[in-house]
């Protein structure tokens, strides 16, 4: 069962990215894509997924059935119901969804082939530099549906939120064991902010999904070093992270730094061959992102006042203020009665630390990646031209959500028990 769920998550995630890129490129080069074109792309992708599925079989571990699966599925249905009730009460999504993501989707859908003329002109405070994975997907949904509807961004939010839960549960279930998988999924389901933000129709949870997918595929590639296809697919997923939000570009830099530090075993002192394969996957999507950035979009608002940037970076009070906020934000993270970090600590106690024979740099790439990402976010705040308290209070909890599923995956990998450990 874990294998099926895992494959559905991988191919659904990559498929959504492919659909978004197709819509964008068609709209850019030709004009408004007709629904027939999108259906052809979807069918062609489904055919490709069947072929790619075969190459996955070699690297995927066998999964055991578990009696807890039904209980976990029932809990997912209940949380899904709560998520839908959030949508029914708040169908336009959060403020950024209206002012940025769905605004761009409406522009793509309503303008037809003329969207570039409007896009390149100044939409006042419209954040046109934000990548278009989510707006293109929403516009694709409207094209396929034949009309604008608030249901499409709602459905996409729901799909991405529960894809993250399913991907985390199934990947940990496959790599570490079913109980570990359900426990990791349970911690994620028990993070109220994750579900609430997931239904807010913004791009943070989709970004979290692509970050997790990349890391899971990289971890899976360790099982079968000769199978390079998984690494390429991880690269494609990292590319889609860049196409989802600007933070995806930071993720890409941190990912390559982490992969270069990763030696798969003692024979491979650095991860250059892996980085090369990863690059092959990233390149096509990155080309789209960079074309969008350099040809179509205005510069990012965070980097417009670069002359003051050095001054802000030299201001020690900003470091203290941000550190204090990071601490408070991490303590208050989750919006529940019990911090999900406590549940994560329980997870380590429950399943024990993995007894690794290698103990080399290969074990450290995931925490290195997460640390680099947090450090990157920290430095972006230091250089931010906006009011610091406003910037922190409106974004920090969402930034944590980008990394939270991957953090749980790392915890699960660090606590693999010996019987199912990948290393052995």
């Amino acid at each position, binding site marked *: 069962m874990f294998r099926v769920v895992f494959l559905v998550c991988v191919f659904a995630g990559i498929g959504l990215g492919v659909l978004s890129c197709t819509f964008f490129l068609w709209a850019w080069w030709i004009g408004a894509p007709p629904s027939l074109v999108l259906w052809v792309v979807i069918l062609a992708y489904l055919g490709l997924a069947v072929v790619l599925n075969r190459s996955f079989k070699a690297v995927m571990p066998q999964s055991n059935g578990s009696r807890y699966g039904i209980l976990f599925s029932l809990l997912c249905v209940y949380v899904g119901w709560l998520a839908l009730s959030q949508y029914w*009460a708040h169908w336009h999504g959060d403020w950024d969804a209206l002012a940025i993501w769905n605004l761009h989707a409406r522009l793509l859908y309503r303008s037809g082939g003329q969207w570039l003329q*409007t896009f390149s002109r100044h939409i006042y405070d419209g954040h046109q530099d934000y990548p278009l994975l989510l707006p293109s997907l929403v516009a694709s949904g409207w094209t396929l549906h034949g009309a604008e509807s608030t249901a499409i961004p709602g459905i996409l939010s729901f799909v991405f939120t529960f894809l993250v839960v399913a991907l985390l549960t199934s990947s940990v279930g496959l790599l570490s064991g079913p109980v570990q998988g359900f426990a990791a999924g349970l911690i994620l389901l028990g993070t*109220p902010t994750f579900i609430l933000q997931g239904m807010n129709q913004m791009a943070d949870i989709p970004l979290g999904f692509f970050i997790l997918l990349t890391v899971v595929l990289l971890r899976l590639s360790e099982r079968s070093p000769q199978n390079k296809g998984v690494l390429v697919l991880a690269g494609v997923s990292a590319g889609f992270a860049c196409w989802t939000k600007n933070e995806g570009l930071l993720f890409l830099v941190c990912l390559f730094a982490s992969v270069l530090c990763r030696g798969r075993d003692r024979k491979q002192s650095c991860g250059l061959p892996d980085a090369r394969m990863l690059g092959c996957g990233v390149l096509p999507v990155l080309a789209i992102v960079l074309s969008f950035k350099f040809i179509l979009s205005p510069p990012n608002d965070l980097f417009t006042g670069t002359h003051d940037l050095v001054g802000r970076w030299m201001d020690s009070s900003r470091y203290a203020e941000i550190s204090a906020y990071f601490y408070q934000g991490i303590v208050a993270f989750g919006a529940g009665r019990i911090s999900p970090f406590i549940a994560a600590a329980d997870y380590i106690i429950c*399943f024990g630390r993995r007894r690794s024979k290698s103990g080399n740099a290969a074990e450290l790439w995931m925490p290195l990646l997460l640390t680099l990402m947090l450090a990157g976010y920290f430095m972006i705040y230091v250089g931010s031209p906006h009011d610091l308290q406003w910037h922190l209070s409106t974004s920090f909890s969402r930034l944590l959500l980008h990394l939270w599923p991957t953090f749980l995956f790392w915890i699960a990998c660090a606590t693999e028990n010996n019987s199912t450990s990948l290393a052995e």
Partner: protein
Amino acid sequence: MRVLPISSPSQDNPLGLLYIARCFALVAIIAAALSNIYELKFLTKTVSATTDRELDDYLKRLDQLRKLLPPAQRVGYVSDLPAAEISANPEQFRKYCLTQYALIPVLVRPWTDENLIVGSFSGPAAAERAMKEFTVIRDLGRGVLLLHKRTE
């Protein structure tokens, strides 16, 4: 079938203390998650649909306005506050962004130097003040107006 991935007392710890600690930790994970999911039930209830209904009402009126305007055009915007103060006032800025959201691909610029201007007023007093400067082309109700700059 393996019930728990944690080792049995005899394998891991002869006293079984580690085993008990691990069992407690598993119970703690389940309790924390269920407690937070219970909390989520109340957090979703606190979201009021009233705001979105008001939003829908405002967007519907602007949708009527959109049908009057040719696409890929620019229009101005006037509200209770002068243009320079709109972005500093969260409520007014929100209304401006909603107007842009509703009218896109028509570009709404927060100034009054365009031929056609969208007026969005919260009360009749502010609307009447604006009438001195602009001619009303269409009144869509509840303070939403399509205006034309009056020439001297």
